[in-house]
């Protein structure tokens, strides 16, 4: 019957976002009763190495919310062409249109709202699906009522949406929450964007939200103006449903700078709208030709993929614990525990697109074969690119593509560099003072050279059309002799030794030292 369209990203937009959003997702799912109903969450521009926002809070969502939610993930690279035009990191019009394009065509209605709204039907037990089934075609809004921050934060149980809605019915009376704030037509109400129900076919006819609105604010008012023209009227469902907003002004959100807030032009986008249509984006709204990944919380979850991947690569431990050491006298010892390290390496890649092409530069053959098994098991379909200069690594595995480093470099979307000992076997002791053998040194010299070249020339060697820098994952680069070289070239955080893994984007150090390093890296001096 209806597709709820909301958007956001895995960040901290406003106060206690995680709780607000969980309350809202669960409450929205709670008022759905039609099998076609869906919540479309557009996860816009979350960094590639992060999970989407709903994935990050999945444990706080009800089974019903997980079942009805479809997450459409817009990658930073897909946003990159707009990055220089806006101060915002998540774009409303683009997000909502991407969802509209991909919404269930069986649904008659699209409901635009936000991740902090609860809908309470005035007839207890009546679902919003039932309400929307019964009302005639139109463009409907409801006024937004505010919930004081203390109330939703202190009293709501995020996994009890039914209980929360009951509480809200009580509070609305007890605390006089229900104040309708009228506004000029075509807006009709203040904060209208938290409940705008439009026919799906109307939204398609008017070409969705205006994608030139990239400075934030007034997207809802623009939509109201255009739908008011198209439909002639802005109707209300105030007799059917109340909408409550979890107030979150203790901390200003990123797009709220008080009177200095940058926003879309009020006159241009509201008071001088002269047509419902947007002919300039008639063919392009919602990015019809862009492949948008869809993530579900009720199937093929990241955890399931992770378990499946590692299950193909490592066996469960047979001892209560193993040991390593970060003592300084072991600085030159490059042994590491592969079954322990691999889960941390896989953790770094799991959130990337499944089609990602990853270049692995390394020394240990068993690392590559284990990682390749995990890569396939996690459902990745992109190749593992292994430079033929890395002698001794297996190249006959199905996921692996090999070739000259220079040829593979512009094909890679992600890098993993492993600094291990080629001679280390799976059962060899770890960090006991082992010195690198001549063969190890020979192989590591190649790994280091290729790494320096890849990191120094990253910007010049990106795949065609790619705008954003590629990430480097270093394996076995903490508290050993490769810590410094790796972090000379990659902006990595300080991580615990136990994880063995560091990751980051190529470092842009404009100091003389940085320039020299990049020069030497490019030319492998």
């Amino acid at each position, binding site marked *: 019957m209806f597709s709820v369209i909301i958007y956001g990203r895995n960040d901290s937009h406003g106060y206690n976002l995680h709780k607000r959003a969980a309350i809202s997702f669960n409450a929205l799912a709670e008022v759905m009763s039609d099998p076609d109903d869906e919540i479309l969450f557009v996860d816009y521009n979350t960094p590639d190495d992060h999970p989407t926002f709903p994935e990050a809070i999945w444990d706080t969502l009800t089974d019903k919310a997980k079942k009805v939610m479809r997450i459409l993930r817009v990658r930073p690279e897909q946003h990159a062409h707009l990055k220089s035009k806006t101060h915002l990191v998540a774009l409303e019009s683009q997000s909502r249109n991407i969802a509209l394009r991909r919404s269930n065509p069986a649904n008659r209605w699209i409901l635009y709202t936000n991740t902090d709204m609860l809908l309470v039907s005035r007839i207890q037990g009546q679902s919003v699906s039932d309400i929307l089934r019964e009302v005639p075609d*139109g463009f409907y809004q409801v006024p937004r009522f505010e919930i004081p921050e203390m109330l939703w934060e202190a009293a709501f149980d995020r996994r009890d949406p039914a209980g929360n809605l009951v509480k809200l019915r009580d509070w609305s009376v007890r605390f006089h929450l229900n104040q309708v704030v009228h506004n000029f037509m075509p807006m*009709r109400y203040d904060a209208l964007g938290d409940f705008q129900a439009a026919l799906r076919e109307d939204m*398609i006819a008017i070409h969705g939200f205006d994608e030139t609105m990239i400075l934030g604010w007034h997207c809802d008012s623009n939509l109201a103006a255009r739908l008011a023209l*198209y439909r002639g009227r802005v*109707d209300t469902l*105030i*007799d059917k449903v109340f909408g409550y907003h979890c107030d979150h002004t203790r901390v200003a959100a990123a797009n709220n700078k008080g009177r200095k807030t940058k926003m879309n032009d009020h006159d241009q986008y509201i008071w*001088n709208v*002269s047509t419902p249509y947007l*002919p300039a984006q008639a063919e392009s709204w919602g990015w019809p030709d862009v492949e948008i990944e869809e993530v579900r919380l009720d199937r093929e979850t990241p955890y399931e993929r992770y378990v499946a991947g590692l299950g193909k690569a490592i066996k469960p431990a047979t001892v209560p614990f193993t040991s390593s050491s970060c003592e300084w006298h072991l600085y030159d010892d490059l042994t590491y525990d592969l079954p322990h390290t691999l889960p941390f390496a896989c953790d770094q890649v799991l959130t990337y697109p499944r089609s990602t092409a990853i270049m692995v530069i390394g020394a240990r053959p068993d690392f590559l074969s284990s990682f390749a098994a995990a890569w396939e098991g996690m459902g990745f379909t992109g190749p593992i690119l292994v430079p033929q200069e890395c002698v001794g690594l297996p190249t006959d595995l199905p996921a692996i593509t090999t070739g000259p480093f220079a040829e593979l470099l512009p094909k890679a979307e992600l890098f993993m560099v492993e600094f291990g000992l080629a001679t280390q076997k799976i059962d060899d002791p770890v960090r006991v003072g082992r010195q690198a053998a001549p063969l190890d040194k020979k192989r590591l010299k190649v790994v280091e050279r290729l790494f320096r070249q890849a990191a120094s020339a990253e910007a010049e060697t990106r795949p065609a059309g790619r705008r954003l820098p590629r990430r480097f994952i270093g394996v076995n680069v903490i508290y050993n002799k490769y810590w410094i070289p790796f972090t000379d070239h990659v902006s990595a955080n300080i991580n615990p030794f136990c994880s063995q893994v560091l990751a980051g984007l190529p470092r842009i150090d404009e100091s003389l030292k940085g320039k020299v390093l990049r020069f030497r890296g490019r030319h492998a001096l």
Partner: protein
Amino acid sequence: MAGVRSLLGQRQPELTAGAGPQDTDVAQQAQGHYRRGRTVMRAGELAQAIAEFDRATELVPDYAEAIAARAEALDMLGQSEAAKPEYERARQLWAADRPGAPDRRYVFRRPGRFTFEIESYELALNRIKTGSFPHMACGNALLVLGRPGEALKQYERALKLKINDPDLTALTGEALSMMGQYLRAIEAFDFALAVNSKDADTLSARAIACMALGKVDEADADWRRQIALLGQEQPAARACVAFRLTDYALAVTEFGRAIEKEPADAYWRLYRLTAQRRLGISGSAADAAPTNAWPSPLFALHAGAISADEVLAQADTDGRRTEALFQLGVLALPDDPGLAAERWRDVVASGAPALIEHAAARNELAKLGA
């Protein structure tokens, strides 16, 4: 009832002026009460507001805006149970208004009185001095209410704020066309189409104006361009354009798809039946909805159940008479092309150029060489 409703919609001299209950015209009186009710409601005088809305609905019982406003006032007084059926009734009244032809500009596709909207936009105009939108929205409402002269003034005000805007210019064209000033209308449409040649609404508008001037080829060329622009998801619009063009094969297909989408729409069934008959395909007049309401008499005419005189007697508006005359032409054609041509000439002479039947009759006459 329809008479009072059309009165409300078509006979008010100036919606922008506050009509008072002392006015003699029933519709104006009702509107005056409604507007007074809204004013006192905003001032918090809910009981007084309800009394005003009651007076409005006593005069015009199906005054949906007044019914909805009364419901809201009752709700605010805590009488929510009493308000519920009123809200619902208003909604059903709005829904009962038949939308305009789906191939025309959006403005004509949604009927209504728009008293609430006009009043609200007037309020906005007290504060918004640099925006064209409230003028245009008022103009749109007036245009739908059949008051093109007043609409034109609103559009001209809007154009002073948004100079040379193609969409506003096209709307002035619609108003001019409705006023019978087709040449000026075509100029306006030409201007808009020079900016956006893919503006399907304006192609339709220019086609209608051209057809009104008897420029059949030019009109048809615009409609053919329009149909190429209309998406497959708009079968009713495509079907109506095809019917205007008397492309009956396409019309049968598209009306079939439109009926799948809107099975209750009697007109889609009627037009499909008409197109089938023109193609020599036997359609079913039993497609008619089981009601005596218009356009059922036209189905009865196709079924041979009533005569030409009887159907014309039941056609109680100009539009319905035009529809009946067109159908009489279709039925006469196989046996008496001369009579068919006569019927269609009547359609052209008396029917509004915006009507689907007007264009179809012109094209039929062109095919007959008449």
